[in-house]
């Protein structure tokens, strides 16, 4: 019976956690921080989308993806393509040899817009593509793997290879993608200048609300029967088949969902930071995102967000003073998490802090009636 109580207690704790995060990112930080720092936090929050997705696919289902940068990047690129086209109006680009196409295409001797760029002139199309393109990529990748029952470390390696492939592709085809510099100099969205402080503040709040929405979405999935099937798959994948479930389609679904959530983060990144480049697609950022999630606690939606914010805060303040040491610190942190507290900060909190608090509370509650005669046992 006590276990059931703990589960419901954890559910309540999680709700309180989401509430506290909402308070922090919607009230405390905007009041406390200047525009520059707030924009920085906004950037961190976009990584938190990826971490929330990783809680679903890695923490609960046991699918480790070392290629979430693919989906973050694809979402970000879809957004950037729209913004770039809007910034490349004929009026803005009249000094180019071919006016009306993005500047990097002109530098690469392209004379017309490539066909796959054309639909990105439309904002509704771009917004749909932000979700649809990464989800489709995730579907093809995961369907091919999971139907063949490729999993575990092999899947992780393949996702990593895909992250490398996509980076090489983007860098190599710079006339179509902007190359290593990425897609830069983004200005307006439907005429609304996204570079002003006011716009950045609005985008920050949009990002924060979306993140909270994604946390509730993840919570909904995890508290449904599907959530329990995910745990069952992590536990004993083979057995789940004999309970009558098509394990592959469940895994494909959760991987696509995680990727779609990451992609929303990528799009918000592009909007807030004002560019997208292959350095957010490849292996290193993908692994960093796994570390954010691991530090925060891969089985906790709240933990993943907290972990992302903390690690990025540490990264920013640490690398301002000791830039060359940061990577070592990060590596050390990851090893420490894996060895010492595999359930991350969230695990430390529920295993150590909460029992301590309960003890303190019962001691205090016990102390008050102590003044009156203790009830006979």
């Amino acid at each position, binding site marked *: 019976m006590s276990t059931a109580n703990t589960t419901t207690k954890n559910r309540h704790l999680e709700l309180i956690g989401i509430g506290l995060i909402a308070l922090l990112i919607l009230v405390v930080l905007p009041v406390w921080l200047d525009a520059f720092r707030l924009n920085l936090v906004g950037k961190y929050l976009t990584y938190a989308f990826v971490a929330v997705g990783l809680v679903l696919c890695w923490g609960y289902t046991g699918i480790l993806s070392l290629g979430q940068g693919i989906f973050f990047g694809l979402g970000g690129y879809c957004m950037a393509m729209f913004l770039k086209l809007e910034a490349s109006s004929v009026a803005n680009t009249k000094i180019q040899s071919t006016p009306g196409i993005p500047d990097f295409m002109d530098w690469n001797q392209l004379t017309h817009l490539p066909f796959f760029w054309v639909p990105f002139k439309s904002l509704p199309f771009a917004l749909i593509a932000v979700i649809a393109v990464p989800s489709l990529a995730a579907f093809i990748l995961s369907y091919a793997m999971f139907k063949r029952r490729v999993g575990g470390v092999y899947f992780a390696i393949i996702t990593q290879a895909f992250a490398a492939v996509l980076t090489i592709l983007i860098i190599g085809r710079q006339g179509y993608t902007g190359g290593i510099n990425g897609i830069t100099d983004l200005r307006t969205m439907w005429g609304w200048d996204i570079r002003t402080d006011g716009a950045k503040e609005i985008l920050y709040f949009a990002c924060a609300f979306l993140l909270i929405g994604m946390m509730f979405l993840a919570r909904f999935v995890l508290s449904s029967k599907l959530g329990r099937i995910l745990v069952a798959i992590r536990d004993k994948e083979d*057995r789940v088949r004999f*309970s009558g479930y098509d394990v592959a389609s469940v895994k494909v679904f959760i991987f696509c969902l995680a990727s779609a959530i990451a992609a929303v983060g990528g799009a918000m990144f592009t909007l807030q930071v004002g560019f997208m480049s292959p350095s957010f697609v490849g292996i290193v950022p993908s692994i960093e995102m796994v570390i954010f999630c691991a530090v925060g606690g891969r089985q906790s939606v709240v933990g993943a967000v907290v972990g992302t914010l903390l690690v990025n805060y540490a990264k920013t303040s640490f690398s301002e003073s000791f830039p060359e040491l940061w990577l070592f610190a990060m590596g050390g942190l990851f090893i420490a998490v894996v060895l010492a507290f595999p359930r991350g900060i969230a695990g430390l909190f529920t295993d150590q802090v909460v029992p301590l608090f309960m003890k303190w509370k019962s001691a205090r509650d016990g102390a008050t009636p102590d003044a009156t005669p203790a009830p006979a046992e």
Partner: protein
Amino acid sequence: MANSTDFLLALEGVTVSFDGFKAVNDLNLYIDKGELRVIIGPNGAGKTTVLDLICGRTRVSNGSIKFQDHEITGLTEHEIVKRGIGRKFQTPSIYDDLSVFENLEISFPRGRNVFGALFWNRTSEIIERVQEIAEMIYLSDQINQRAETLSHGQKQWLEIGMLLIQDPELLMLDEPVAGMSVSERVKTAALLNTIIKNRSVVVIEHDMKFVESIAHRVTVLHQGKVLAEGDMEAIQADPHVKEVYLGH
């Protein structure tokens, strides 16, 4: 001899080879509706492999497996489960991180696709059914406990319960009393005797006492082939069987 449509399950000429080694060799096995069949045989006789073949875990190299007169070779595991075949594994195979209730609920034969599971509604009908099964498998008091904390015998019962709630036409049990204490064995035999009603059951078992207590018909496997088939007394009297198995 009845024609093939009367059998619930019919294996004909089934062969499976692993790198040339024929674990099951040209096997014929017929299970009637409502029959309880015990499969015995020395180690390596291919008993577990036969169950693996029926439930789709191992692919048949040659031959045909028909369930309710439909070919089931080539179907995936979950499709075979949906046809009505349930399987209990040798080691207790339950979901440690879930509670007894959740283990049973997952096995309830509804909402088995992604969206069915996502928008699953825990109705009173399901709760009642889960509680009913929990009582049958002696786990009512542990219903909200994490399955990991159960004893070995209780885990075996839970797995039997997970099969029961699936309500299969054919139930396959791989050593259901292995590692159980004497009192647990007695309870398990009672449990099996109640659940075999209205369905066919195939049991693999080593424990001869237990086999005697439940068996209707016994099939002896040896080196991937049927060595003998019949009731318990006939089997025990069979000189071939004595030679390879019982006499040891």
